[in-house]
């Protein structure tokens, strides 16, 4: 049973990312979108990156660029940028979806 985790809020103002991280299992998919893109520069990001061998981590490109959030420094093996269309496809390939916001 895989979960698609949608992170839509900034960990600088909420606890949502922290709670999400405690509920991540092997093969889960995690997407940063909307204000969730700001988490790229949050200390909790390290915990997510540490899990990158067991999960897939994505960021919605347009949402990041709209906020001038730069993720070029992060290797593509750790973080993949996706379109909204690809996000929709992810909702079908996981068993359930949780929105953390």
């Amino acid at each position, binding site marked *: 049973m*895989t979960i698609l985790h949608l992170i839509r809020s900034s960990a600088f103002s909420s*606890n949502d990312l922290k*709670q999400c991280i*405690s*509920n991540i299992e092997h093969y889960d998919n995690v997407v940063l979108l909307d204000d969730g893109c700001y988490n790229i520069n949050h200390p909790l990001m390290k915990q997510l990156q540490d899990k990158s061998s067991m999960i897939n981590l994505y960021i919605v490109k347009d949402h990041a660029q709209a906020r001038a959030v730069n993720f070029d420094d992060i290797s593509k093996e750790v973080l993949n940028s996706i379109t909204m269309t690809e996000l929709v496809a992810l909702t079908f390939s996981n068993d359930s979806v*949780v929105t953390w916001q």
Partner: protein
Amino acid sequence: MINKKQSIAILNSTAPFASTNGKDALDLALIFGSYEQNTSLFFQGDGVYQLVKKQSPDKISTKDYLKTFAAFEFYDIKHIYVCAASLDQRALSDDFHIDNVTVLTTSEFSKELHARKIILRF
């Protein structure tokens, strides 16, 4: 055994009175229960404050929806899980205002959540 096909998790992450999240989650749980859906409740983060004993919402003119938790057995809601780490972080004990609550470690909690087909977070 959990029937994965239809099992529903309601994940409570907010404290009881400042928002309607907790009340909304309860209403949904009771509706699912009335339709015999396999529903479990999960409490994590500030959601654990909903289980604290001796709260007095009448002092702030708020309806005491927490009293309804004691009726879960009549709605076939048998599984209630709480995250131990969330209790520890808030200096709360496992002495709740309802019985039959299961306290789980963070990783057990995550695994139970993953065993549900539908997860609704409040």
